[in-house]
């Protein structure tokens, strides 16, 4: 089997690429034990007034090993004497990734904002 330098380089790079890809998929796949586990971190320090009210940025992360779909989250706070709820849906939340979102209220909330997970779909 006679091959020149270019062919050797391409062949070795190919074997390397395939081996690494398969190894990563298998290793990540076999380590896939924890179900999806969305978490919400509110960034109160970055909250600001917007044209239509109070905007509160947050980071939603998935600490599990499996993806979650249609992740619905909500934040509750007391605004102007009444309780307000801000709800968001995130289409896809892959394992190990973070998504930046923003909750919004009609005005700056009094007291603490409480965020919770409403639910999600398992792919």
């Amino acid at each position, binding site marked *: *089997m006679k091959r020149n330098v*270019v*062919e050797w380089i*391409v062949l070795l*790079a190919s074997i390397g*690429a395939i081996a690494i*890809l398969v190894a990563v998929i298998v290793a*990540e796949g076999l380590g896939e034990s924890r179900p999806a586990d969305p978490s919400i971190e509110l960034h109160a320090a970055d909250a600001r007034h917007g044209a239509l009210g109070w905007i509160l940025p947050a980071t939603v992360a998935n600490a599990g090993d499996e993806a979650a779909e249609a992740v619905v989250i909500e934040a509750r706070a007391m605004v102007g004497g009444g309780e307000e709820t801000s709800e968001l849906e995130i289409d896809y939340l*892959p*394992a190990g990734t973070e998504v930046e979102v923003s909750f919004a209220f009609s005005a700056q909330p009094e007291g603490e904002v409480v965020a919770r997970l409403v639910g999600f779909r398992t792919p």
Partner: protein
Amino acid sequence: MTEGLRDSLRDYTRAAGGGLMVGLPLLYTMEVWLGGFILPWWKILVLLGIAYAIVLGYNSIAGFRRERSIAQLMVDSVSTLGLGIVIALVALLVLGRIDSTTSLRDAAGKLGLEAIPIAFGASLAATQLSGNAVEHRGGIRPLARLLVGGGGALLFALNVAPTEEIVVLGVDASPALLLIVVATSLLTTLALVFYADFGGRSHQHGDGLLDQPWSETATSYAVSLAVALLLLWAFGRTEGASIGAIAGMTVMLAVVAAVGAAIARLLVGGQAEGGEDQ
């Protein structure tokens, strides 16, 4: 630079070009990116394995180099698949689909899926787009033609298989409509291959059972249905779906597959015994 080196560089550049031609639509398809992390890990490996077998099939009909042993063929096919992975990596980086926030599992899944059409295109570039294809103009045997048809079906159907549209079409269709679609698919491909007079193929057929227009059309359509079903399974569309929905999606996707198979069969010519349909 020696002639051999220049030849090799040209072959790989051509392979990369063919890979992009076939792979670009899917590099721009959201369902494929999502499939990278939604599909179970073992399925991505199975798909890569099937892709390797198909690349081997393409390359064996006509490939990079002439006169090769089976071992050489297998090694060449490894290069084709590897090339697909490398091109997919560069493309996904350039498109911003893989960046520092992408998890390893997500990136590997996307790469595995996107590398498949690129590898098909790369091996096709070496067969259909090069001067080498000429030696097949004389026609190939019916079973090989069926295989080539399957390859064409795969290439065409791959572009629409991951989309939501197939689900909508398949689930909405009534059984009566599906029967009409089946009949239309058969008639269209029969007309395309045998009566449209593309590439000197019209009306010419041999004596074998699989060489008759109706038999070739029927077997090729069956292969197209199988390809459609395989693709639906690959993209997770069959999971949890009813038999009726699966049948609907398969028939709707097989329209595209059957046209792809017809065009591929036109490209490789018709005569079973070869050499006389110029």
